[in-house]
């Protein structure tokens, strides 16, 4: 009888620790030592490149606008 209770107790303890230990998979190691920083850097460079292109386009149009308003005055 006593053995049975003890066994049950052990079982409950085990199962709760197992349940608590059940973790949801996340890319933890991926983040700490998996060089995710490299991906972030590359994505930032791609974004910076697109922004630089946008700035170029923006300035080109500003120049054209200036030219057009000058030629309309003339």
């Amino acid at each position: 009888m006593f053995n049975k209770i003890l066994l049950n107790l052990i079982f409950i303890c085990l199962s709760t620790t197992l349940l608590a230990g059940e973790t949801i998979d996340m890319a933890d190691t991926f983040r700490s030592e998996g060089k995710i920083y490299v991906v972030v850097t590359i994505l930032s460079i791609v974004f910076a490149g697109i922004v630089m292109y946008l700035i170029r386009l923006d300035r080109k149009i500003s120049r054209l606008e200036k030219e057009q308003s000058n030629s309309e005055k003339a």
Partner: protein
Amino acid sequence: MSKSSINTSFLSRNWWKITGVFLVLYSIIMGFLGEVPRLPILHETIRNLYFHVTMWFAMIFILGASLVSSIKYLSKSDYRQDIKAEQYAYVGILLGMLGIVTGSVWAHFTWGAWWVNDPKLNGAAISLLIYFAYIILRNSMDEEQKRARVAAVYNIFAFVLLLVFLVVYPRMNKVDSLHPGNGGNPAFSSYDLDKNMRLVFYPAVIGWIMIGLWLANIAIRSSILRYNQLRSQFSSNKEKP
């Protein structure tokens, strides 16, 4: 003009472009490195919130700008407002298509299919079709003022339908939806109540809105340039005997 006054006018004209770039850059960096809640099924894909959901928020804002331009056109008949409405609509459609494609990829890896029969998905698809029809309707007319007026009126209908299909319809109680906050699912704010995520998500939305406005700004200015050029060519041809 002194150099400092040039700089201040540069900042006063372009602060929103600079802010947009920095906010999106911040969302790219913190979107990958920041802490996110640990949820089954979603796992790391919860980070798509920063990149997929922001597309839709920015789309609604930009299409709202298109609507405002259309209303302004109807009250003032200024051709610039017509050009603005058209170009904002193009940028909004671009953002919407990005939203649908990214959402489809996300759905494939979490819900198990590229396309599911979800009211939000179908609503988004219908609203995009409505805006495709706006572009087709516009381009089907040659007479400039008539085109501008009909397109402006249609644009008002289109925006109302967009709100109905994207905001109202998926939230109706009798509709089942996989999206959070819709069809009896817990609201958006309850699963990412996480402060860390909000600190990235809201700046990302503002950043993408500003980037979208910048794209539209470039498109609008180049369209106005072309319009003026064509007009001056036309008038100089008329002067010739």
